[in-house]
């Protein structure tokens, strides 16, 4: 199993990833997080609320998927006006990335899935 710091470091190097985090699946607390790309000192740090709410949302998506008899969700992507939030479950943690709108989402998805597979 790769260390969480390695997972965060490798995901944060993927082009277009603004921030990468490993978050507790049940409590939504950050275990490890990268710096935010382009973060200005004094600006609001969005990682904590994003991590908590993304983990919460993923748990609900899990239930919806289960209710629809589709099994465990493999990958969740939330498309917003100014970018994306991607989430992948990996055992007791979820991997969360904040991604720029013009990022290569295929690459982000592949790297997150591989990182999750290594942590299962």
């Amino acid at each position, binding site marked *: 199993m790769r260390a969480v710091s390695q997972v965060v470091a490798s995901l944060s190097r993927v082009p277009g990833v603004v921030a990468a985090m490993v*978050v*507790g699946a*049940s*409590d*939504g*607390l950050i275990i490890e997080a990268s710096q935010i790309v382009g973060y200005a000192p004094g600006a609001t740090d969005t990682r*904590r*609320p994003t*991590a*908590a*709410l993304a*983990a*919460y949302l993923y*748990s609900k998506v899990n239930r919806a998927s289960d209710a629809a008899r589709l099994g465990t969700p493999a990958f969740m992507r939330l498309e917003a006006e100014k970018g994306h939030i991607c989430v992948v479950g990996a055992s007791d943690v979820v991997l969360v990335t904040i991604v720029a709108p013009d990022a290569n989402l295929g690459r982000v998805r592949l790297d997150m899935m591989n990182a999750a597979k290594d942590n299962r």
Partner: protein
Amino acid sequence: MTNPTVAEAWVAAPLKRLMEDARLISGVLLYPSGRAVGQFGFSNAADVMSICALTSAINASARELGRQLDGKPFYEMHHAGAERQVFMARAAAGAQEFLFVGVFDRESSLGVVEIYFSEFQKALEKLLPENQAVQVRPSDDFEGELNRSLDALFGPIGKK
């Protein structure tokens, strides 16, 4: 989910929002002295009375423990039970301090409760009436004060 009952009207809206957003099952907002300010999820004054007394005592112990261990009081505590979890924290609005204790289950998470509690704290800060009396110390009439706050929340005992 029932609406919060409050002894001070200005806390009703932020308390309701916290309850709904953080998906809390029950919660009590109180002064550090043990006097209840608002509650939701309880139908019995005796339960709220016990929670206020216990929360006040736990806060005093935790505050001192924090001072001894870390040189400053702890701000929040979390207890994860098998089914339900308890979140306890201090909230400051101006010079006035409040304590909050809330219960949640798997419908929420500690991270989510923390996020909405920080918003709740900001709302208290913004809405605190200017003429609010600062009560940082327990009054000499702890029991009478507690009973009066419970009367405000549940109505006078024996008159229902």
